[in-house]
């Protein structure tokens, strides 16, 4: 009994510490963004604003139109990419889950093989850039890497195989339902857990992606919010009077605090909605790990 309590106390201590380590960097970021430039220059980034100030946000507000635009791109890419990616993932996974499907094993292997071997960055980049010419188009944020992957297809396929009894499909077919009707009316309503999970993972992939923007886009007008963050990390003056993107700032740039404020702007939406999707996220990790 004593043993039990001791271990529970130890667990709580360790997890309170671990939680602090996980949260504190975000606190440092948020607190610093609400500090005055002068206090940061004197005493550095800190966990509590030594001198409260909204200057960094006022500066960002002068470029609100551009930041809003970048957010618009992120939202569009995330919603559209997730919707399309989810559709083609489900549409590929379902036929492969059917034990009666002709060529099922051969096609499954084609999907699976993409998990084992890949051409890497150079051929992928040259294909998209020099042959499909997607440079500086929104397609560059949507298509390469993120739309669909073999892993998600195989997880979804396993879900269909283990959760949908073939007898349901067969009896609907005998009742005269076509394959598409069966998929839409029977399979999809039974698959909401996997749709939520896969959709969430595709969506986070799009939301967080900066790599495609970095390699394919140098026109700041089609930067997603992650690309703006990436750009500001290297050049904090990126939004200061940049005629290419139509930003005009008369206020002086409070460099050190804007750096944190822009990071807050980038991180905030996820911090806000995370508690809502947290449950599916944990489930998704477990499903993914079990399968590979």
């Amino acid at each position: 009994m004593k043993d039990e309590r001791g271990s529970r106390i130890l667990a709580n201590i360790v997890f309170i510490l671990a939680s602090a380590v996980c949260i504190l960097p975000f606190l440092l970021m948020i607190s610093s963004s609400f500090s005055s430039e002068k206090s940061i220059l004197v005493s550095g980034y800190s966990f509590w604003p030594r001198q409260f100030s909204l200057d960094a946000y006022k500066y960002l507000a002068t470029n609100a139109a551009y930041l809003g635009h970048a957010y618009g791109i992120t939202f569009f890419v995330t919603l559209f990419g997730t919707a399309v990616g989810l559709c083609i993932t489900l549409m590929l996974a379902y036929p492969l889950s059917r034990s009666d499907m002709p060529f099922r094993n051969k096609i499954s292997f084609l999907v699976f093989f993409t998990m084992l071997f890949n051409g890497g960055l150079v051929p992928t980049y040259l294909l998209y850039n020099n042959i499909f010419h997607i440079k500086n188009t929104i397609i560059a944020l949507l298509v390469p890497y993120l739309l669909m992957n073999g892993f998600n297809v195989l997880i979804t396929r396993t879900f269909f195989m283990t959760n949908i009894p073939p007898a349901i499909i067969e009896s609907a077919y005998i009742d005269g339902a076509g394959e598409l009707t069966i998929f839409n009316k029977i399979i999809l309503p039974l698959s909401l857990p996997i749709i939520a999970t896969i959709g969430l993972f595709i969506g986070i992939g799009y939301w967080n992606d900066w790599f495609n923007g970095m390699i394919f886009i140098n026109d700041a007008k089609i930067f997603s919010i992650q690309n703006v963050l990436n750009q500001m990390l290297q050049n904090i003056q990126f939004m200061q009077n940049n005629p290419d993107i139509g930003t005009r700032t008369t206020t002086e740039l409070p460099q050190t605090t804007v750096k944190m404020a822009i990071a807050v702007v980038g991180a905030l939406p996820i911090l806000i909605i995370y508690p809502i999707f947290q449950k599916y996220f944990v489930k998704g990790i477990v499903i993914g790990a079990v399968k590979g």
Partner: protein
Amino acid sequence: MEVIARVHKHKKRNYKRYIPLFLMMIPGLLYLLVNNYIPMIGLFIAFKNINFQLGFFESPWAGLQNFKYLFASSNAFIITRNTLLYNAAFILINTSAAITLAILLNEITRKIIMRIYQTVILLPYLFSMVIVSYLVYALLSVDNGFIDKSVLPIFGIESVSWYSEPLYWVFILPLVKLWNQAGFLCIVYLASIVGINKEYYEAAKLDGASKWKQIQLITLPLIKPVVIIMVLFSIGKIFYSDFGLFYQIPLNSGALYPTTNVIDTYVYRGLLQLGDIGMSSAAGFYQSIVGFILVLVSNLIVKKVSPENALF
């Protein structure tokens, strides 16, 4: 009668029935063709001397020239060493940390508290490496960083230029990776600990086994298969690294390349910053092939250890 006829027809593989299903698969398969299969074929450019005027196919063959250049430079050794050692460190450190956390988390009986901890430690995993590099910058910046301005003075240490001394990054990068990934792995291992039959522990308690003994003799042996599989699959991916971690966190600082350059960042810089397609395609080819061999080997081992978990 009709039902029987249909079933009979089905047995003879009524391909017509499957036409809609084949059509459904087309977009996904087309995507894999473009995004995955054509680039695989494209690996051949490692053997070419690419001239954009001539195009990929007409460019002259270079034989093994690109590889000779790559392996003659010290870079090949450095990037291979960095990739392997960092990944090995990540596997070792993060796996042991995650198992420890998972065992401890399982000790917490209040469901709601357990869920709060779970939610919090998973938080770092959610953010892009760009955001994480801002966080690391807030800690390590020479002029304004929390560590330089608030922590080091306590110990009477002058400021440290973290972003120009390669040696520090040997420790910083594993710490950032641990922060980023431990929660994720903890959830994975927790799932397998939760799955252990409670009766084992009840019986052990009746026999007077201490908590530590229970962990040693029940928990660890029972999650061993999952651990082995997770580790082996990580070893299969040991030739690939987390690009964002090695590129963003050190702010792409040239002074740090000796300890932050890995195969992925080398290929990226060769292709997009230096325009050296020969060298970077050779490095990419080397990564793809060795990576593939490692996946096959680790799968072979998984197959020996626990056949039902093997990928193929």
